[in-house]
């Protein structure tokens, strides 16, 4: 079996909120003041195979953006390992390290903020490939034109600044910039969330076309289940820093196992559902600064048992290819 393109093994991310001066002085004087830590990610394992589209779903504070940043190597995890084609990226050096870095590129949420406002499109797209010697400086113009054409933009766009483009055009420029260094994996963090519906459809079609033509793999992160369902082969659901369920997309949407996934699917607005009686999931999403003990979802879960308050359910294979982190799945098949 070949190793997956990208593998994250039990990755955790802790952000410590550093103490302010007053607290530091207090501690120096012997007061019992600790650092407030956010466990943005808590032992997350995830793999993306060559050419595969993995969808990652979750609400605010679940750690999906942190995971995206670790997946492209912007952050190093505070615990756990990131592997590229089976090799830990922390151990890579020199050219191999550079190639591994370039092979995973990111598509950002805000198409405008992710483009340097003082650079023209030609420079935005053409800078990195020239710096890394993928094309000669003389060949930049043609290379950029080729990339712009691939993402459905006119070559004349190359002369423009980001603020002169429409939202859809900016999104395409962001994609062209990532493609310029010939990646194998695109990590899309809410990449279509800021776009209008009709433009969103155009960009989703572009993602599908790139997958088909270039064999790209995707880690597609979104709060929009509809979008994820459309693109992904496999879907992982996150809640407060942990993956609570992961399964092939069809199976997950047809029969969700984890109560949180079920709640998400039930609340997802759908075109086909009219004059719905919205019966909301109870409660707020807890602060990641102080997540509830045991299963993070238990305060909002209709099936919570005493055990859920004490013990953390591990992600376990509940059916071939299907994983869930819920005690219900261990004790009995939910109806």
């Amino acid at each position, binding site marked *: 079996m070949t190793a997956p393109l990208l593998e994250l093994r039990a990755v955790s991310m802790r952000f410590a909120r550093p103490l302010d001066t007053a607290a530091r002085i207090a501690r120096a004087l012997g007061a019992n003041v600790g650092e407030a830590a956010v466990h943005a990610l808590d032992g997350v394992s995830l793999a993306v195979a060559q050419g595969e589209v993995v969808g990652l779903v979750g609400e605010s504070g679940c750690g999906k953006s942190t995971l995206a940043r670790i997946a492209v190597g912007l952050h190093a995890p505070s615990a756990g390992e990131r592997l590229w084609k089976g090799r830990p990226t922390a151990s890579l050096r020199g050219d191999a390290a550079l190639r591994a*870095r370039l092979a995973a*590129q*990111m598509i950002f949420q805000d198409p405008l*903020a*992710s483009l*340097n406002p003082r650079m023209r499109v030609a420079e935005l797209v053409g*800078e990195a490939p020239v710096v890394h010697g993928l094309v000669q400086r003389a060949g930049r113009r043609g290379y950029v034109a080729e990339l712009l054409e691939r993402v459905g933009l006119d070559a004349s766009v190359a002369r423009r600044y980001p603020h*002169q*483009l429409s939202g859809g055009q900016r999104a395409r420029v962001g994609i062209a910039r990532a493609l310029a260094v010939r990646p194998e994996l695109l990590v899309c963090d809410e990449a279509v969330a800021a776009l209008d519906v009709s433009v969103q459809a155009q960009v989703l079609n572009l993602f599908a076309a790139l997958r088909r033509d270039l064999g790209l793999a995707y880690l597609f992160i979104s709060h929009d289940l509809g979008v994820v369902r459309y693109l992904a082969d496999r879907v992982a659901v996150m809640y407060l820093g942990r993956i609570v369920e992961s399964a092939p997309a069809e199976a997950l949407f047809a029969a969700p196992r984890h109560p949180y996934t079920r709640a998400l699917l039930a609340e997802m607005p759908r075109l086909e559902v009219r004059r719905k009686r919205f019966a909301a999931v109870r409660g707020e999403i807890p602060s990641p600064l102080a997540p509830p003990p045991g299963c993070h979802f238990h305060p909002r879960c209709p099936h919570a048992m005493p055990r859920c308050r004490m013990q953390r359910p591990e992600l376990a294979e509940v059916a071939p290819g299907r994983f869930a982190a819920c005690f219900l799945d261990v004790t009995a098949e939910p109806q």
Partner: protein
Amino acid sequence: MTHDDTLLRRLAADFAASRLALAGLALLAAIAAAAILAPWLAPQNPYDLAELDLAASRLPPGARSADGTTFWLGTDGQGRDMLSAILYGLRISIGVGVAATLLALAIGAAVGLVAAWAGGRTESVVMRVVDLQLSFPAILIALVLLAVLGPGVGKIVFALVAAQWAYYARTVRGAALAERRKEYVDAAVVLALPRARILFGHLLPNVLPPLVVVATVQVANAIALEATLSFLGLGLPVTEPSLGLLIANGYAYLLSGKYWISFFPGVALATTIVAVNLVGDRLRDALNPRLAQ
């Protein structure tokens, strides 16, 4: 929405919306032109001692010399034509102010950028030095430095830079920290671009424009500071009088009714500073997104 409005053009339109600022700009342009063209405009070269006639010293405005030239603004104690002296003095004052500001800007920007990017201990150390420096009045630092170094154009520029760089370092660091959080910087990092390229090619151009505006206003401060130092006799050598030195020269005669020796250089200095401030303030308002409609 696509529009071909460049940032610069919008800025120009916003700027032009204020008549006062336009007047300031016109005035500033006139002053700058007069300073640059001083050798051609001035009736006399005030540095050329051979041209000076001690007999013509302290003549009132409008007086004529022996050889028939009119001293429109009078002469000073050495028989120098005040108009010529002011034009040459402007040249030095503006030159010193601009040079000092540009140098301070370059040094401060580099320090601030590196501090913001490096973070951690480097940043702490650099910023504490900046804080320390900013806790002393600029004039005190310049005074002490000049007292040690002695007068000279290069030395006063050095003193002004030393007194002002910290201000830019702090401003740039603040702006760079805010800018660093933007996604385009992350994008550059993911593209594995070299660090220096990200710092100076991506971050700096986005941090610089508001800073240039700050610098415009700071030029006025630098000119005023230089004038103060020269007035106190610490700035420039007597052979190259700036406006401050001219004012100081006439100071002794003020009470004896020979007002023009101090008065006209003073007017020139005040006008220059006001013109720079008018332009700088308007630029700052035009660049401030909160005030823009």
